[in-house]
């Protein structure tokens, strides 16, 4: 995987089209209105097509981002002139766009870098529309702001293209009927929707980190996109809350472990037997810095606690030298502010590391609503792991077999098959 810390400064050329696509769609949608999202996407597609044709012969221009933006701007001017009698564009700009006197200055203003930055956030908040499911929000973010095609989203979510297509079409329809783009200058509305935006970025990142795709590169891409968007959120004065910083810290600290988590063949390694030398030191330091910044408020969010847990792992030179007591403590906190069976499961695993497998099994038995874990393969897998450590191979095997039956994708299946193998050795 390429270094996700690299793009912090300047332009990341490998992902240029992908990251510019969101910025261009955002600014054009601001001009055309959210009901003309499809038109904005066409103009962006056209700008990329021209770049592809010209650059393949002449190489990259000095400032590729600026080239793309200028091309999009010229195409937008063209569209606005030709179609202004046939279409209505952004209602709040329509008077300025109707007059030839104000058209070009308005366009220039909208294409200023700080305006584009705002447009990107506006689009991000718009995608997190409350009448959309979280799943739909993440899909729209990925499609509209990260330039993932239907096929690419489908591959990332291991869904059929038809299902994703439907979700995107419905989502866009919902956005179009809401008439306006989200107004990021209204402080109250901004603060009210911010948690949904953070949540969508969190889910996007998790899809990358834990997701079902068998392709290691896909995991890295999703994580990287979530980190990029989180950075934009952090750069906005109202977006830069302690929770946002904690979220960004959590992403950095987890992404640092990504190279150790999946090997070149896309095989999953449990945290316990990862090659820690492959963890990314620069990302760990960045995560630590963000975690410090996030501690500035009085608010303690689940993002803070999850980041703190990831930080303890990142600090430890080995599994044995990990401060498991501290980790159990953080899970206790997490159970207080955001209890869930999955959190309880992770807590039980930490308890097992801290006080031994027997204690871990007792913690597993103590999970109140463990019925909700029935279809979650890592619950039986955890039992299997602990039984195995107690030398009870037959019991371990049975649990791993149960886990295997619940495996949701080939990556998990291969991982659990290897654990089953360990019961025989």
């Amino acid at each position, binding site marked *: 995987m390429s270094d996700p810390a690299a793009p912090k400064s300047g332009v990341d050329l*490998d*992902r*240029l*089209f*992908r990251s*510019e*696509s969101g910025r261009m769609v955002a600014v054009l949608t601001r001009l055309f209105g959210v009901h003309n999202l499809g038109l904005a996407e066409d103009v*962006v*597609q056209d700008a*990329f*097509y021209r*770049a*592809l*044709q*010209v*650059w*393949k*012969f*002449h*190489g*990259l221009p000095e400032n590729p981002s600026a080239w793309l933006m200028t091309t999009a701007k010229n195409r937008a001017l063209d569209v606005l002139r030709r179609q202004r009698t046939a279409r209505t564009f952004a209602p709040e700009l329509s008077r300025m766009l109707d007059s030839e006197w104000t058209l070009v200055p308005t366009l220039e203003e909208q294409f200023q870098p700080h305006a584009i930055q705002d447009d990107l956030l506006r689009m991000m908040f718009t995608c997190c529309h409350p009448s959309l499911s979280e799943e739909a929000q993440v899909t729209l973010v990925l499609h509209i702001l990260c*330039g*993932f*095609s239907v*096929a*690419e989203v489908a591959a990332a979510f291991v869904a059929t293209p038809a299902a994703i297509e439907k979700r995107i079409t419905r989502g866009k329809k919902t956005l179009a009927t809401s008439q306006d783009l989200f107004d990021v200058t209204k402080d109250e509305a901004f603060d009210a929707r911010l948690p949904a935006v953070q949540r969508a970025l969190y889910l996007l990142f998790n899809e990358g980190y834990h997701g079902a795709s068998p392709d290691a590169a896909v995991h890295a891409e999703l994580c990287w996109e979530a980190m990029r968007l989180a950075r934009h959120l952090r750069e906005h004065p109202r977006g830069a809350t302690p929770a946002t910083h904690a979220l960004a810290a959590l992403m950095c600290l987890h992404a640092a472990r990504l190279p150790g988590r999946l090997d070149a063949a896309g095989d999953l390694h449990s945290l316990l037997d990862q090659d820690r030398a492959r963890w990314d030191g620069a990302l760990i330091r960045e995560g630590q810095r963000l975690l410090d910044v996030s501690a500035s408020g009085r608010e303690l969010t689940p993002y803070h606690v999850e980041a703190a847990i990831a930080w303890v792992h990142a600090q430890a030179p080995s599994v044995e030298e990990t401060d498991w007591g501290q980790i159990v403590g953080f899970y206790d906190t997490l159970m207080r502010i955001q209890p869930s069976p999955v959190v309880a499961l992770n807590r039980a695993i930490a308890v097992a590391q801290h006080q031994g497998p027997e204690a871990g099994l007792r913690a597993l038995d103590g999970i109140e609503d463990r019925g909700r874990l029935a279809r979650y393969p890592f619950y039986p897998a955890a039992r299997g792991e602990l039984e195995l450590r107690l030398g009870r191979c037959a019991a371990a095997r049975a649990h791993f077999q149960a886990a295997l039956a619940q495996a949701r994708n080939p990556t998990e299946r291969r991982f659990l098959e290897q654990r089953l193998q360990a019961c025989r050795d």
Partner: protein
Amino acid sequence: MSEFVYLYRGGEERTSSPQEMQQIMQRWMDWLQGLAGQGHIKDKGNPLERGGKIVRGQQKTVSDGPFAEAKDLVGGYTLVEAKDIDQAAELSKGCPIFDAGGYVEVRPVMKM
């Protein structure tokens, strides 16, 4: 060394995602750079707009065009140098246009 023109025909790239387009572009840049590195490029050439004008006949009538089928439309050209037509054809095999369903027309430049 003799000169040849590569005419790139067809090869629809418009429907790809941004990331795919970027990868296609990268493959083209790598290929042309590779040829240049081996001294085969006389002029990297240019892409051509899809539409234009056709001027035709004694009357010199001007009309929109060409309306050839997209799969045969010339999308660009490159001027290369090679030992002979066989080598020029061989060198064209690295062109990424084949991945997109297009093809390369290799034509010797006529010399005095």
